[in-house]
């Protein structure tokens, strides 16, 4: 039995435009036939397109946690608007005739089944390491690290205040060599430094006012310190791997990720970073356009219902391929994940899964989330500070806090716990997310007392204050999201 609703189809759509077009096909009555198999595991139909022959599309739920969408239209988006329309029609209760699955579709289903079985077999085979190739790669990475060190030292000698558009452009150009040296993460770290001197359109211009430049100096210094740490820890890590080719990528620290190691699910499984049968709820979501890196970034903040651990999903869509990579979206249900892989990291590591089932969120889930909120601000602050001192740590960790009240002191919004410990709410320093503090003034007073607040901590290097940005409020019956 296929249990899908319109929310499910929305989340399956690769982007908003595809979802809109899919809905439009149903509205305009473009489907010439709508069918469902006798065993209720596959939807298939014919949709009139611009050509003479209608498109034949199907949505196969034989694997309910990882459905397969097929269509003979030329679109490179999956699911295409025709498959989405088919699912919308089903979710909207349109009449589907129960018929036998056409032969060609049946044979495709069988082929898929055999491919899945073959994949499982392949995963179970022991993986062999080409030691020679690995050594060659690590050697190249070490050469890249030398380059990064040289560039960092040059930047420090030059001085942050003397950065010009020309210098930033040259550094960007040289940073490309880090990508060639299998160090994309280090390249990004260097890029994070240079982009501080870029304007909003992502270009480097001379002529920024001294005030504008002054605003980024502290952050720039922090970034240089981070590059220095990547050089030191990266060199040591790579040298260890060069000496022992059998050594697996490091999972205790995030250095492998900082160097740009692309974690394979298999590696995460081998490292024991897999949890089984996990239920996840999304606490917040935001997407932003990273003009400097020319990509769209979507970040989901998720809590594991069982443990309360908060982790993130990240989806990077470079402009050039944005249309063909499925965009993530806000998620309002509970994701039931068979196999959840966690990347090495600190407070909020990145997570990933390949297949999931959905169930609606219920009041008991809100209670569970609230149960995981930390009522002791002092303890959380201590934990955050300990975390932040690591040069490679995520500088904006996310926590769920159970608060007594949200109020104001001389016009400054603060949140207070039961013991009277306070944290100041701010939007400063987080340009990737929309402002959210003002939304608190639009909520009923009951939402500002004895609820759970999901927050992102931020340490301002200039004012030396540790403050928080509200992301969501969880009440016993609702989750009020403040960012997007």
């Amino acid at each position, binding site marked *: 039995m296929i249990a899908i609703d319109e929310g499910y189809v*929305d*989340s399956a*759509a690769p982007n908003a435009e595809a*979802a*809109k077009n899919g809905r439009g096909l149903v509205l305009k009555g473009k489907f010439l036939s709508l069918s469902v198999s006798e065993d209720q595991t596959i939807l298939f139909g014919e949709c009139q397109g611009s050509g*003479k022959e209608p498109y034949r599309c199907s949505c196969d739920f034989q694997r309910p946690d990882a459905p397969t969408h097929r269509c003979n239209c030329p679109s490179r988006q999956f699911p295409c608007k025709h498959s989405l329309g088919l699912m919308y029609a089903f979710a909207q209760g349109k009449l589907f005739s129960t018929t036998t699955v056409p032969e060609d579709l049946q044979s495709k289903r069988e082929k898929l089944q055999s491919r899945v079985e073959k994949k499982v077999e392949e995963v179970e085979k022991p993986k062999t390491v080409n030691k020679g190739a690995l050594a060659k790669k690590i050697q190249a990475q070490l050469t890249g690290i030398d380059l990064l060190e040289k560039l960092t*030292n*040059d930047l*420090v*000698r030059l*001085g*942050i*205040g*003397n950065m010009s558009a020309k210098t930033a452009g040259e550094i960007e150009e040289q940073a490309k060599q880090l990508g060639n040296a299998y160090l994309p993460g280090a390249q990004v770290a260097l890029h994070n430094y240079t982009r501080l001197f870029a304007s909003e359109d992502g270009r480097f211009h001379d002529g920024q006012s001294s005030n504008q430049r002054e605003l980024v100096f*502290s952050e*720039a*210094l*922090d970034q*240089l*310190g981070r590059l*220095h740490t990547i050089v030191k820890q990266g060199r040591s890590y790579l040298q260890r791997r060069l000496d022992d080719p059998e050594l697996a990528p490091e999972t205790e620290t995030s250095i492998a990720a900082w160097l740009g190691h692309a974690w394979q699910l298999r590696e995460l499984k081998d490292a024991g970073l897999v949890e089984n049968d996990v239920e996840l709820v999304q606490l917040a979501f935001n997407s932003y356009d990273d003009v400097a890196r020319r990509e769209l970034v*979507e970040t989901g903040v998720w809590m594991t219902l069982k443990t309360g651990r908060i982790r993130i999903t990240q989806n990077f869509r470079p402009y050039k391929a944005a249309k063909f990579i499925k*965009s993530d979206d*806000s998620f*309002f249900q509970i994701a039931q994940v068979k196999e959840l892989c966690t990347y090495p990291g600190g407070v909020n590591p990145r997570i990933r899964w390949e297949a999931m089932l959905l169930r609606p969120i219920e009041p008991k889930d809100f209670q569970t989330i609230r149960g995981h909120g930390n009522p002791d601000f002092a303890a959380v*602050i201590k934990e955050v*500070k300990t975390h*932040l*001192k*690591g*040069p490679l740590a995520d500088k904006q960790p996310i926590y769920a806090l159970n608060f007594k*009240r949200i*109020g*104001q002191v*001389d016009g400054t*919004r*603060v949140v*207070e716990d039961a013991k009277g*410990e*306070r*944290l100041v709410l701010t939007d400063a320093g987080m340009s990737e997310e929309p402002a959210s503090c*003002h*939304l*608190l*003034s*639009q*909520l*009923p007073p009951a939402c*500002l007392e004895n609820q759970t607040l999901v927050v992102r901590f931020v*340490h301002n*290097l200039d*004012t*030396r*204050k*540790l403050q928080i940005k509200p992301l969501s409020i969880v*009440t016993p019956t*609702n*989750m*009020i999201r*403040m960012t997007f």
Partner: protein
Amino acid sequence: MSIAVLTQVYDEVRRLAIAGSVVAAGDFRLQKLIAPLEQAGAKAPVFAKAAQAVTALVESNEQTSSQALLELTTLVNAILYTQGETGLTGEIEPLETTDLGLQTTHVGAQVLKPLVEALTTAGSGRFETIQDGYNLGAFQDLRLVQPALRALDDAYSDIGYLLATTVLPQYGKAIYPQLKAAFNAKGKTTGHVRRLTLMYRLDPGSARPLVKQALQEGAKEMRVGAIECLGQETEDLPILLGHVDDRSIDVRRAVYQALAAINAPEAIAAIKKVLRSSDLELVTHAIYQHSIPEIVNAALEEAKSEFEVLLKSEDQKAFEANFTQFFGLLSCIGGGKYEIAEPFLLESFKQRDLLQSLGGHTGLVITRRICELLTECTAVTRQALFQAHETLESSLLMIAIQAAYKHLPPAEVFEIFSPHFTADLPQKKNLKDAVLTRRKTISEAIAGSCKWYYVPDEIPLIAPWDSRWLDLAVSARDLNFLRPLAVPGHAASNALISDSFNATLQKSRNFDNYMTTLALMIHVSHPETTDSFVKVLLHCASPKAKNLSGMHWIIDIIPRLPKSAAPQLEAVLPELHENARGKLFVAIGELTSKP
């Protein structure tokens, strides 16, 4: 104290990092901090470590300075991250909240993001995004309230209007404080005017002082907006009367609009005064709309006296000078709305010849307006217009037949107007031309009732014409006249269509010239329809054809042919221009798949 030293170290390191590490060697300001750090190091080893790092930096050279500075930076930053100041002392007060009653934030980012972008940026295509979002119910989401409020200032006025009239009112009084906070009575942008009118709509009582302030202090647009809010309360009347002499036409128009809706002696007196002024055109619509009897009567009396003046005009120049005022008064009394005005309209209509002789073209314009008003009057009054058809100038005759088509049974329309076709043509040229002109007017009026262009039956006629017109149309050999009248199986009209088609075939290779004929053929199920399509295709889309423009419409109507036409059309495809084949193939496919 120790942390203060460390903060000083950070400041110095930051200064050196900005200037470049090459200037760090021997830096005396940094050097001064070594001693306090070493002192603090006795208690906490981390300070001793910092002291060593500072020493290393101060003693560095050009080559080693960068490493030393980075080491010190990493160490100091790590410590300072643990010292972040939290909390805020003082009395905590409840947050001032405006409960919008919206706690739903269940709109996905994929919908929300483009909506916020549409509300906060410039560029084309935003209106549709906002309207779609509203239709989806997205504006119930709390996160859209602020962007929507800010977008009242949008440079594209349609967006501001949509928000002010449709989107924002759904939040009710709750947004009033935010509107008020952003409102500036002296503001120059339309956004402030929208805020004022929206505030008044949401909470008239609270907004009243702001309206008065806007009227006192605002620019022209603001005053117009403020006046549009007035008129509901007794106390508004003196305020409105105080602005009847405003220098701005827009302000006066708004004032008159408001006064014309108030049935009070002072307001009526003010409007009566306008009836005799050059501001009349500013108030005509409001007078007609609000229909206060005393004002309508006054307008009628004024119209009568102006009409007298018109008829006494000594020359065309004098006639034209009085024309505008009389024309405006006619708009006040309207047609059909007030029976008391009908005798006057009838009397004016009778003077049409005099009007035209005195005023020339201007006199004809007035007569047309009178005729238009007559068509909206009672049936008895209307009849006078129809009965006068023999003496009407052609544009007046057009008005008469169009009104007759709308109001009379088809047979009666035929009885009244067909004699223009059936009577013998006079011998005298000028009389003959007059009759031919009338025939043309009538045939054009009938042709104009047919709204389809090349896709038959797409827009049906408002009412059928009497079938006897068909024979007259055939006799007139006018396809446009025939179009709304033609029916299947009428031999004479089929013959006319065939003749017309063959005549066109002799002289044109352009698809556009066959449009009416082929569409008519489909409409009347002409026996030669398919053959004619084939001939046109071979004629206009031959492999040597240089221009296939106009082929799109033939593609559009091919699916309307009988299904049996498909094989014949398919057979001719190989003989056509290669650029035509593909599109025709699709159209024929659509024809074939017809149920």
